């Protein structure tokens, strides 16, 4: 046991030693220690280096507000992380931590030369320098700055852990489980309300964990807390969440909680997530976050050994650790006196208590005397010394505002308290208004925007009894607001060490303003001088001061710095603090891992991958897939040794010469039913539908109201009142939503109903001269002859014994059928067709072959040959417009001046002069390749393939005035070569459509 650990004291397990290493050296801590308390117990204060000047830094706080004690923690397997707060990380057997932002080591850091040069590196120095010579910025200055900046080293391997999430709904969410929060949760819990109580500490209790003097309801704080914990745990309507930080207060009482689940365990169970994001929706929220102690700003206030007084009390009473050998306290608030007394009583010599106040409660000085503590009122600290650990301080008397001569006091620990700041971060997330309280020199909650209540230290109350009673009262209010009957118990205490204080940011000093180095933001090395410089340079908004100095922008987000920074800035500006105001608090309350935000969205469940019923066959048969919207689709089916080109050429040949089989299940399908179905389609699609006979289908074109092509597909009329509409794969959801929108809001009088059947049907396309031969024997209930079932027909029938909706359509120019069967039968039908198809040289093909074959026929793919700026006319689809229809969606837009411009880009074919050259999709066209850059472009290639059927390349392109350029030679300047191509019609293959009935 080390000299700094008090046997038997605190809430740590004295019989459960735990070994860990820091910077490679092994230490021993106790179970329930944090890394910080364990290091302090081993006499280690120096734990890190500051951001800018690389100054040696020690542990300042005992909570999540810690700016200095950030370490790298690793447990192998990609489980390494930078910037972990030693004050929150619990020790476990084998914990490995290292210090950061130092080279070569913590005790000797070359980066500390920045400290020597600090005069040349004031706030914003980089805005004023590094501009000459200009080219040095990218090559020299910036890389140097970057290397010096940053804190820890980022992980280099993928994280092996996983993360979880939960939605929760409750009547009352209590954030913070100090006396106020605990009492609130108890009161609300007893009323029967559903309660969640969350605290970011490992144990609930807050201030009670560190107070062994106070008696509550005639019990010790520890006993009362145990009873409260037990009662809360036993209430079925209460959920207790320790190690859980409320990170953000979002709209309408949704609070995000980040729960740390395994970081304190030596060997976490495999299925346990590391962290979990709770998204809690609460009817009422109680914010009982307590208050954060303010550091004091004075010359040399950043040395290892200088610590917040409240933190020392926590280390002493909760962890049984003494902060040092000889302690001095400097304060403007009573609370630090009690810390000094506790330490003295535990055997730590207190050299002096320095209080800036001229007069205080005499009870305090009276209590100091018998403990042998020298009490120095109206005094200040003007300097400190010691490189890696505090050695001494200068203490001066202040009389009538004048700072007297310095007296040297030797000490290794200086505890400071500048008073307390109510924690209102979450309240501020709601855009609730704060009001300045002159008496406590702090902001208190004022106008609320959400159903929330603030209790305890968060609204400036001091003392355990106040906190308990306020918590109980607010807990009852919250429960009642949520509709429960609650009564607040009267909780009484003895030995409650309530007190008072004044707020003081900067200690009086005898030093000239230029020779002080008084830190306001410890991590970012922002001094009071920097803040004054910013104001001096015209930064009169606190937001400018923040950004110019970076005060409050470090990983503690100004939890310690903001109020002191404000006080100093306000004084420099010459306005009272409330007129200057605070910067905005933003989520998360404390830094939260990306993994927690990502939750389950990791690896296989990062995003949905939709697969068709036939996908398993494709996967088994070597398909290469491509993602199309959320779907994965078989792209092509290479045989061993084939590249994409060879596979696609083979698939194309087979389809044109025999029969190809294609999984078209991803096509969107909507059934449109009702007496007004035809009218509905007339209004929506460009085409006329009235005359389409049942049993027949037609290509349909859908525009946005802006006149540009939005989607297309085949629409079949099943009966007078019933249509089967198909959409593109990516457009399915969008089109259905658009249809519902028009139906519900523009034309509610139409009697039509829409049902998505995309997933109801598996769709298998058969294309090729052998398609009918293959299919005919398998079909029952429908004659497939040209007469009975011509191109563009549909029928309900049976295929291979499965109920089917059969279309005769073709997207390839070959005779084609699309068989829809209930999805459960899709795979069986596919296999059956493949089996039967062997005799007909069947070949499965993927989306790439489908694209080639349709391009040979000049069929467009919406989204590839169109891009949201293409009209039907541009795409040669003027024929698809019902000329006599008075209106349809997008019609009016087509008459706008720019949309009737004859020089618009129009879809044409392109044939390269060299038939072997396959153009790049996206290649730009010019009519004169000899112009200088910027060269005027007149179009671009939208689709381009090797056409196996034609034995040459083909392409589609959008070209200005394209249809008037038939036969013209255009140029495609590439990086190192210019291709030439002639404009052609878009139909390259079988222009007369003879193959459709072959």
């Amino acid at each position: 046991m080390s000299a700094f650990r008090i046997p038997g004291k605190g809430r740590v397990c004295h019989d459960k030693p735990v070994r860990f290493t820091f910077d490679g050296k092994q230490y021993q801590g106790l179970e329930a220690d944090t890394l910080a308390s364990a290091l302090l117990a081993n006499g280690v204060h120096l734990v890190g280096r500051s951001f800018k000047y690389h100054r040696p830094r020690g542990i300042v706080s005992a909570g999540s507000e810690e700016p200095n004690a950030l370490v790298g923690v690793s447990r192998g397997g990609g489980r390494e992380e930078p910037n972990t707060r030693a004050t929150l990380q619990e020790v476990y057997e084998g914990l490995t931590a290292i210090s950061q932002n130092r080279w070569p080591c913590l005790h000797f850091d070359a980066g500390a030369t920045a400290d020597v040069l600090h005069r040349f590196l004031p706030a914003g120095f980089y805005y004023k320098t590094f501009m000459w010579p200009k080219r040095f910025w990218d090559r020299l200055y910036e890389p140097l700055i970057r290397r010096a900046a940053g804190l820890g080293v980022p992980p280099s391997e993928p994280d092996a852990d996983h993360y979880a999430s939960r939605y929760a709904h409750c009547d009352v969410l209590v954030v913070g489980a100090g006396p106020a929060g605990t009492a609130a949760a108890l009161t609300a819990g007893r009323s029967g309300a559903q309660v969640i109580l969350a605290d970011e500490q490992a144990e609930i209790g807050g201030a009670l964990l560190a107070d062994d003097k106070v008696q509550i309801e005639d019990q010790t704080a520890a006993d009362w807390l145990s009873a409260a914990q037990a009662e809360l745990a036993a209430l079925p309507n209460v959920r207790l969440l320790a190690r859980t930080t409320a990170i953000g207060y979002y709209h309408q009482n949704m609070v995000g909680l980040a729960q740390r689940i395994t970081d304190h365990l030596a060997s976490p169970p495999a299925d346990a997530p590391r962290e979990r994001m709770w998204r809690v929706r609460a009817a009422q929220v109680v914010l009982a976050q307590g208050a954060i102690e303010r550091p004091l700003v004075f010359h040399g206030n950043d040395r290892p050994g200088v610590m917040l007084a409240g933190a020392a009390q926590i280390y002493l009473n909760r962890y049984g650790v003494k902060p040092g050998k000889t302690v001095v306290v400097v304060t403007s608030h009573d609370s630090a006196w009690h810390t000094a007394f506790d330490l003295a009583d535990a055997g730590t010599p207190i050299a002096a208590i320095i209080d800036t106040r001229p007069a205080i409660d005499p009870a305090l000085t009276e209590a100091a005397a018998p403990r042998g503590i020298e009490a120095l009122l109206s005094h200040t600290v003007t300097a400190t010394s010691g490189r890696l650990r505090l050695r001494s301080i200068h203490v001066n008397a202040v009389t009538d505002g004048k700072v007297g001569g310095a007296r040297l006091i030797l000490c290794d620990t200086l505890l400071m308290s500048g008073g307390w700041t109510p924690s209102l971060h979450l309240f501020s997330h709601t855009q609730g208004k704060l009001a300045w309280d002159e008496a406590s020199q702090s902001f208190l909650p004022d106008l609320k925007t959400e159903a929330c209540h603030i209790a305890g230290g968060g609204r400036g109350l001091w003392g355990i009894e106040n906190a308990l009673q306020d918590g109980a009262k607010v807990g009852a209010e919250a429960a009642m607001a949520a509709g429960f009957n609650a009564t607040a118990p009267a909780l009484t205490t003895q030995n409650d060490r309530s007190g008072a204080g004044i707020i003081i940011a900067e200690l009086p000093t005898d030093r000239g303003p230029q020779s002080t180095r008084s830190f306001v933001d410890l991590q970012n090395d922002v001094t009071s001088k920097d803040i004054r410089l910013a104001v001096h340079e015209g930064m009169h908004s606190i937001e400018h001061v923040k950004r110019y100095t970076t005060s409050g922008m470090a990983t503690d987000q100004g939890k310690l710095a903001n109020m002191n920074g404000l006080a100093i800035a306000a004084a420099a500006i010459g306005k009272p603090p409330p007129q200057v105001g605070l910067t905005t608090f933003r989520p998360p309350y404390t830094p939260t891992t990306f993994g927690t935000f990502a939750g389950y969205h990791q690896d296989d469940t990062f995003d949905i991958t939709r697969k068709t019923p036939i996908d398993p066959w494709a996967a088994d048969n070597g398909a290469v897939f491509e993602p199309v919207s959320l779907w994965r689709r078989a792209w092509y089916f290479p045989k061993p040794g084939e590249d994409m080109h060879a596979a696609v050429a083979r698939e194309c040949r087979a389809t044109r010469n025999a029969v190809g089989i294609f999984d078209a299940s991803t096509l969107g399908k909507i059934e449109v039913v009702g007496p007004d179905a035809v009218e509905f389609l007339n209004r929506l699609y460009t085409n006329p539908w009235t005359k389409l006979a049942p049993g027949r289908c037609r290509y349909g074109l859908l525009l946005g109201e802006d006149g540009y092509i939005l989607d297309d597909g085949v629409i079949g009329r099943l009966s007078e009142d019933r249509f089967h509409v198909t959409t593109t794969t990516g457009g399915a959801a969008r089109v259905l939503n658009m249809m519902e929108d028009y139906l519900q809001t523009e034309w509610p009088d139409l009697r039509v109903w829409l049902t998505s059947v995309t997933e109801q049907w598996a769709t298998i396309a058969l294309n090729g001269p052998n398609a009918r031969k293959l299919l005919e024997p398998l079909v029952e209930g429908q004659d497939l002859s040209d007469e009975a079932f011509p191109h563009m027909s549909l029928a309900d029938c049976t295929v291979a014994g499965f109920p089917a909706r059969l279309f005769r359509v073709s997207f390839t120019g070959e005779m084609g059928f699309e068989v829809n069967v209930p999805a459960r039968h899709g795979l069986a039908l596919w296999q059956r067709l493949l089996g039967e198809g062997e005799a007909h040289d069947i070949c499965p093909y993927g989306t790439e072959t489908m694209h080639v074959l349709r391009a040979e026929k000049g069929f467009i793919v919406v989204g590839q040959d169109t891009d949201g700026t293409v009209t039907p006319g541009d795409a040669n689809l003027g024929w698809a417009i019902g000329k006599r229809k008075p209106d349809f969606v997008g019609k009016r837009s087509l008459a706008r001046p720019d949309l009737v411009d004859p020089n618009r880009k129009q879809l044409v074919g392109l044939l390269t002069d060299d038939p072997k050259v396959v153009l790049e999709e996206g290649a730009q066209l010019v009519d004169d390749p000899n112009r200088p850059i910027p060269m005027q472009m007149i179009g671009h290639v939208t689709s381009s393939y090797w056409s196996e059927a034609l034995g040459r390349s083909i392409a589609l392109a959008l070209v200005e005035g394209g249809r008037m350029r038939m036969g013209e030679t255009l140029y495609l300047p590439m990086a190192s070569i210019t291709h030439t191509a002639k404009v052609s019609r878009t139909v390259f293959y079988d222009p007369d459509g003879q193959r459709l009935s072959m």
Partner: protein
Amino acid sequence: MKVQAMAHFSAFSLLRNALTGHKHWPAQWPDALPKAEYDVIIVGAGGHGLAAAYYLAKEHGITNVAVIEKGWLGGGNTGRNTTIVRSNYLYDESARLYDHAIDLWDGLSQDLNYNVMFSQRGVMMLAHTVHDVQSFQRHIHSNRLNGVDNTWVTPQQAKEICPPLNISTDARYPVLGAAWQQRAGTARHDAVAWGYARAAAARGVDIVQNCPVTAIRRGPDGAVEGVETAKGFIKAKKVAVSAAGHTSVIMETAGVRLPLESFPLQALVSEPVKPIFPCVVMSNTVHAYISQSDKGELVIGSGTDQYTSYSQRGGLPLIEHTVAAICEMFPVFRRMRMLRKWGGIVDVTPDRSAILGKTPVQGLYVNCGWGTGGFKVTPGAGHTLAHTIARDDPHPINAPFTLERFTTGRLIDEAAAAAVAH
């Protein structure tokens, strides 16, 4: 005309001032009280408005100018964006405008005598689908012929440029390649606003902060007479509104309704770490944008929320999605921590391109609609806006960005072409 002496910023002046305790730096911009009348009033002290004021003074000799800001200068989107600067836009009009901006960015620190930390670390736009590839190739070819650098890189090359990138072919959104613009990069957002403010102020421009413009006043002939503000009426024959998300509210007071909607756009930073991320990576498919600032934090951008809002907040689900996407592309970042997230109000037009030029009202100019991507154009927008105001006639570069295009249908639809944000 009161022209403030601007202290020259340099390593030497820094040294000299260090020796005298930094007591002699003048204010970077004085707190101006509004005069009764100006030649030109610019509403909104974002980067764009300040840049316009600077170029009015510098290039057109018009210095009787006020920039009127409702809050603190640079506190709008200029102070809350992910600082991506690039010019590899598809359409000729956009490419010219954004490339004009890059030309101005290059040398801006020296021009303003303020280090705006323009860092040409390169921007990589990842292609995850065949469609992405087609679209990016179209951009690359178009850019080349427009003289804008943008090249295709393979997944392996992408990984060499950006080592944390996951290029596994098993990824849900595998990297099929990327468009890479080397001249692109980032700049320090605050410094841009401050640098322009300081340089404009030094040329006599008044910067009036904490002074919301409540209305634009028009005379009996319909022409602009000035602006109503929280500090009273201020006269000016020329008023330019450059108020990003708030533009439509102000323009409405002049009777001009605009095709604009204001959406929340969120961004976040991680805790600062040692250099790990050398360039900018954008993925439009998963809506995530990332770079590392000179201070070491990862700067990450998200997509817009679905509903319009002026709350500068935005929702949690979107942020969760963005962070998940970042972790998917860079699995080493899962243990990194989010330090802070915030929102901005971005003004979006139907074609996702800006409106920059004259309005139907005599003497009223507008610069808006930059949506999720106008930081990069700050110098270019300011420069051409100044030209438009000074000559009452657009610069050829901003001439296509008119309001009329929404009537004629001559849209500049970058979004339709590529679904590109930032």
